[in-house]
């Protein structure tokens, strides 16, 4: 018996999962593949390449209500929004995006647990799909960023494309449970025997760790002005990113009734750090761009031990001004000698 799974096997399994859970998967639209709930396994784009926007919105939505307030009521009322967390399968998540989830986990569980995130996270089964080839060879640099394109250790289930089909293995107990009654035997896992050789997809001529190390001492380097010259502060890079998580909290309503909501935000925006007094510690775009790079490659790794960049390359492709993160990192990798600056 052929142990390899076919797409039909994946569909059979997906159909079984659909009976009990919502499945969010890449689906094809005229604008390219996007993450969306599917009603039928036939809607899933099994060979989808890469979505323009990462799947993080299914864990940290672009917009969500935290609570509603009614101060006109007697006594005044605050009503927390239901935690909208149906059991969900995030299906066919590439290793870069699984690494993005790991980055969100670290922040959202740092001392204080962010309950809306945690509710969705706890109810989500992560099914990863390894990349045999880079979906976007010009911009994918996951391997350079320390992410194995063939392996997603934080996933529950790992689907690996192989010659003539797929191998499937469970990496967690939840993953194993989801595969009960699966149409084909599973690859032994997570033992190394079942693990594919480290993938070569997403290998650009770049050593992100070396570039990150080289950033230290370059904080006050005038190079930031030229590196960020093209940046228009649109925030697209943050919007498409699997690991960006900054958010804004605002009230919608009036002084009597309304909702407090949370929206995605971006360090590229000029008002992101602006104080009410008018003072802004990052008054120029070059300083905001520097913050983005330092957050991803210095500040976050210092706290959590891994990069806040997974090498998915989306920001490279999406930037309307042609800013290229890979080229920026190559600048530092090539010239690590710092010119002053504490960090």
């Amino acid at each position, binding site marked *: 018996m052929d142990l390899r799974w076919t797409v039909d096997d994946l569909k059979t399994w997906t159909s079984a999962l659909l009976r009990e859970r919502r499945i969010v998967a890449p689906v094809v639209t005229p604008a390219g593949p996007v993450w969306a709930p599917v009603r039928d396994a036939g809607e899933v784009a099994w060979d989808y390449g890469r979505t323009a926007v990462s799947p993080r919105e299914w864990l940290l939505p672009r917009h969500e209500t935290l609570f509603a307030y009614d101060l006109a009521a007697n006594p005044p009322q605050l009503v927390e929004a239901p935690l909208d967390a149906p059991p969900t399968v995030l299906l066919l998540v590439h290793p870069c995006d699984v690494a993005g989830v790991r980055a969100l986990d670290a922040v959202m569980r740092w001392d204080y647990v962010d309950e809306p995130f945690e509710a969705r996270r706890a109810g989500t089964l992560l099914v990863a799909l390894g990349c045999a080839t880079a979906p976007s060879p010009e911009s994918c640099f996951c391997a350079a960023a320390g992410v194995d394109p063939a392996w997603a250790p934080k996933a529950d289930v790992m689907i690996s494309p192989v010659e003539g089909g797929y191998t499937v293995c469970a990496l967690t107990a939840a993953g194993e449970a989801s595969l009960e009654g699966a149409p084909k035997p599973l690859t032994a896992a997570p033992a190394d025997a079942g693990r594919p050789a480290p993938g070569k997809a997403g290998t650009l001529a770049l050593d992100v760790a070396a570039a990150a190390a080289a950033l230290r001492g370059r904080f006050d380097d005038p190079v930031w002005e030229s590196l960020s010259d093209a940046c228009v502060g649109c925030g697209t890079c943050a919007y498409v990113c699997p690991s960006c998580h900054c*958010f804004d909290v605002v009230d919608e309503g009036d002084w009597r009734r309304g909702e407090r909501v949370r929206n995605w935000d971006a360090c590229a925006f000029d008002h992101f750090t602006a104080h009410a007094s008018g003072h802004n510690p990052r008054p120029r775009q070059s300083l905001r761009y520097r913050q983005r790079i330092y957050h991803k490659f210095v500040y976050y790794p210092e706290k959590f031990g891994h990069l806040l960049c997974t090498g998915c390359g989306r920001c490279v492709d999406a930037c309307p001004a042609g800013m290229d993160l890979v080229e920026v990192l190559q600048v530092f990798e090539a010239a690590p000698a710092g010119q002053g600056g504490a960090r």
Partner: protein
Amino acid sequence: MRLYTPHLMEIFETRQETPDVKTLKLRFVEPQMRESFSFLAGQFGLYSAFGEGESTFCIASPPTWKDHIECTFRAVGKVTEVLRRKEAGDVIGFRGPYGNHFPLEEYRGKDLLFVVGGIALPPLRCLIWNVLDRRDEFGAVRIVYGARSVADLVYKHELDDWAARSDVELVTTVDPGGETPDWKGGIGFVPTALEQYAPPSGNGLAFVCGPPIMIKFSMPVLDKLGFAPGQIVTTLENRMKCGVGKCGRCNIGGTYVCKEGPVFTARELEALPMGSDY
């Protein structure tokens, strides 16, 4: 109750400190919170003006005042404009306490110097009253406080109380031109007043809080007086949305003011990129 859900607090008294600075005295609406709420001097909270959002302020009253907390703010933005219009009987939101605190136990037996400008007194007033309420445990308490004008001094009634106490040395000053005919305090900027006052440093601590220009010119004076960077303490406020290390905007370098601050020593700040831009 979830992380981002504020507790309702009722304003039971207000005080107009200056034309644009106001104090709200607050009590939790939930009886259980009145019993259980506790914090340490230096911690902050996020105050809700529903309809506009939240603003971050250090709790301005000491933890030794068990029955209420106080919030003192200058009306400069959308949230504070709404808070300014609130009166006794109105309800606002509060969540906290967040952040680190002044390590009061480490200060026991030491002389404490406060160097403060304008609206920066509220975050240090918490510590000052905490110390005064446990007066025997500390050495000298010296306060140098200045504002642009006499009208801009906050907590005027308490300044009178402190001036009358034998166990507090208080130096007040206003910027040149900010004095009134009956002003009894000094005239000049805070760093100058500090230099003239010249308190001994000894094994003590200096708490410095005020506008950046005041801090900038006070630091060399403190250095001359013999305060080492580890003896100089400040408390910072940056724009925050979550207060708990997630929204991603209050960092100075890799340090989150909300989590690793707001209280820092000058020695800790030396390691951060603390120019005007960061």
